[in-house]
């Protein structure tokens, strides 16, 4: 259904929503390689043919390695470009992501996670929390990581990622998973926003390799610097930028935390399962709240620290062996017990399993 504002209400998969949102938010190019469970992104773009409407370039690359270097090249020339993949494909991209971080190139990488390690499984997982938030490549850097928990957020985070990526000249990642990628939900697609004109790009990205129009000094995109003092200066500059991002860009959502005795911390699809568990626990009189980090980096450390003074215990619920729990423990600094519950191998835990585990971990006896 098309609204007057240009928004459109549709029922679609999370992966499809990413593709439509990209076309609508003025994305200049998508470069990607097929891998389950995210191939609908490239397939949807191929069906929509945005090169005939908005002028957006869509290219199936020869590998994830090529894809990420196309993002490095396209972003380096000032364009809004993106790629998408799933866990082992994103592992292949890490070299390029490190180059982008080093050369301060904006761009969007969508990771619709599957179980690992290695080839793993095609079923959903959140096993790439470390890969996403620890900078999977070499050197001291971070990538800005957004974790959608609904199809709506899949759509909304595309434009948001580009805005943040260009604001800070940093690669941004949408860390989704097989559940959010494949589930069909109602989504409000944003109105069409035109791609930036050449003049707008030159204004917004005076550093980009667009050709030295008007005889300006040359622009060079590189992460190389052989003089240690200069390389240290560059690293200090990057660290300063990361501090600014930590200060200004932390995003999270809270649910029933005001009177909570216990806190569940969960992101993405796990947060949806946690919500169901919380409503059942509340029905039993157990006061449980949810903190859902939306940015995994920067992490809502400060808020979790505050809440750790209020609650009797924190359970970190992830579809993995326990990765984000390390960040939660770093925030809590031992003030309250922190436990983890999760499953691996592509198995998605049920709300009942989470309820039982929470009661067991914190000695909550049925009234």
């Amino acid at each position, binding site marked *: 259904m098309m609204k007057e504002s240009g928004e459109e209400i549709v029922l679609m998969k999370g992966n499809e929503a990413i593709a439509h949102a990209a076309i609508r938010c003025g994305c200049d*190019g998508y470069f990607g390689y097929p891998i389950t469970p995210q191939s609908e992104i490239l397939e949807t773009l191929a069906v929509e043919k945005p090169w005939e409407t908005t002028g957006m*370039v869509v290219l199936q690359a020869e590998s994830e390695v*090529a894809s990420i270097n196309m993002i*490095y090249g396209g972003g380096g020339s000032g364009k809004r470009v993106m790629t998408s993949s799933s866990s082992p494909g994103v592992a292949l991209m890490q070299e390029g992501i490190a180059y982008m971080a080093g050369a301060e190139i904006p761009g969007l990488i969508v990771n619709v996670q599957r179980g690992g390690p290695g080839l793993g499984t095609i079923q959903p997982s959140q096993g790439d929390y470390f890969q996403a938030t620890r900078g999977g490549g070499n050197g001291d850097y971070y990538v800005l990581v957004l974790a959608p928990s609904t199809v709506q957020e899949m759509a909304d985070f595309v434009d948001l990622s580009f805005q943040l990526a260009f604001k800070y000249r940093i690669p941004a990642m949408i860390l989704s998973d097989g559940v959010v990628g494949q589930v069909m939900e109602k989504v409000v697609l944003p109105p069409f926003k035109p791609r930036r004109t050449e003049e707008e790009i030159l204004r917004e990205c005076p550093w980009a390799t667009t050709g*030295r129009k008007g005889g300006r000094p*040359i622009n060079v995109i590189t992460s190389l610097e052989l003089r240690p003092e200069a390389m240290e200066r560059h690293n200090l500059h990057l660290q300063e930028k990361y501090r600014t991002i930590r200060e200004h860009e932390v995003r999270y959502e809270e649910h029933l935390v005001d009177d909570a005795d216990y806190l569940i911390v969960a992101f993405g699809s796990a947060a949806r399962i946690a919500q169901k568990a919380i409503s059942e626990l509340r029905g039993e009189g157990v006061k449980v709240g949810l903190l859902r980090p939306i940015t995994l980096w920067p992490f809502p450390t400060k808020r979790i620290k505050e809440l750790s003074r209020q609650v009797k215990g924190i359970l970190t619920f992830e579809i993995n062996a326990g990765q984000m729990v390390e960040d939660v423990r770093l925030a809590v600094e031992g003030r309250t017990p922190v436990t983890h519950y999760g499953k691996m191998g592509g198995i998605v835990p049920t709300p009942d399993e989470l309820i039982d585990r929470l009661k067991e971990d914190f000695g909550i006896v049925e009234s």
Partner: protein
Amino acid sequence: MGNIISPENIVYQKPKLLNDTDMHYCPGCSHGVVHKLIAEVIEEMGLEEKAVGVSPVGCAVFAYKYIDIDWQEAAHGRAPAIATAIKRLWPDRLVFTYQGDGDLACIGTAETIHALNRGENIAIIFINNAIYGMTGGQMAPTTLMGMKTATCPYGRQADLHGYPLKITELAAQLEGTCYVTRQSVHSVAAIRKAKRAIRQAFENSVNRRGSSLVEIVSTCSSGWKKTPVEANQWMEEHMFDFYHVGDLKV
């Protein structure tokens, strides 16, 4: 005798796009000559404000210090992927890569073959000196049979190391390439021909005729452990026997 050094007597000038920075290349290396040709061609075509180069990992990693145009420095072997994106997103620009044989014919073989096969409107300048120069003279995919390097000190032999790769011959078979040629810069005549080839490749990029590959059979006097003169002679006697100079596809 009047002063003969006056503007009307100038018969040769360094291209303006070639910076006055001291080059880090060794005496006798072909890179300097090829850099000069690229600068001349861009200047003659009037593309100073439309040219974007992609430099490799290898001796030419600092190409951006010498030729005064916009550059992106690629990860090892990935230059054709970077150039693909820039050209597709900025179709009216001249986009070219500058790569050595380790970069293009080994670690970046996939990116090279697929960019060329897709017919990306980019030009690839390929410096083939049959050795890894920057890392200190190790075996390259292009190292000749019997040739001694740091990692095949007793000479390249098929059972241990496999065979030298003629990637330019491969490229000529691909539907996406419109121009594939092998040149050298060891003599004035060769330099003139190489310049014409680079110009043809750059025109193809600007006019979107498909992919161009210009291989330049080159010397690496340091890696080969020869004087500049010996290196040139060795190249003529050995390299040209295996890497035949001339057009492969026009």
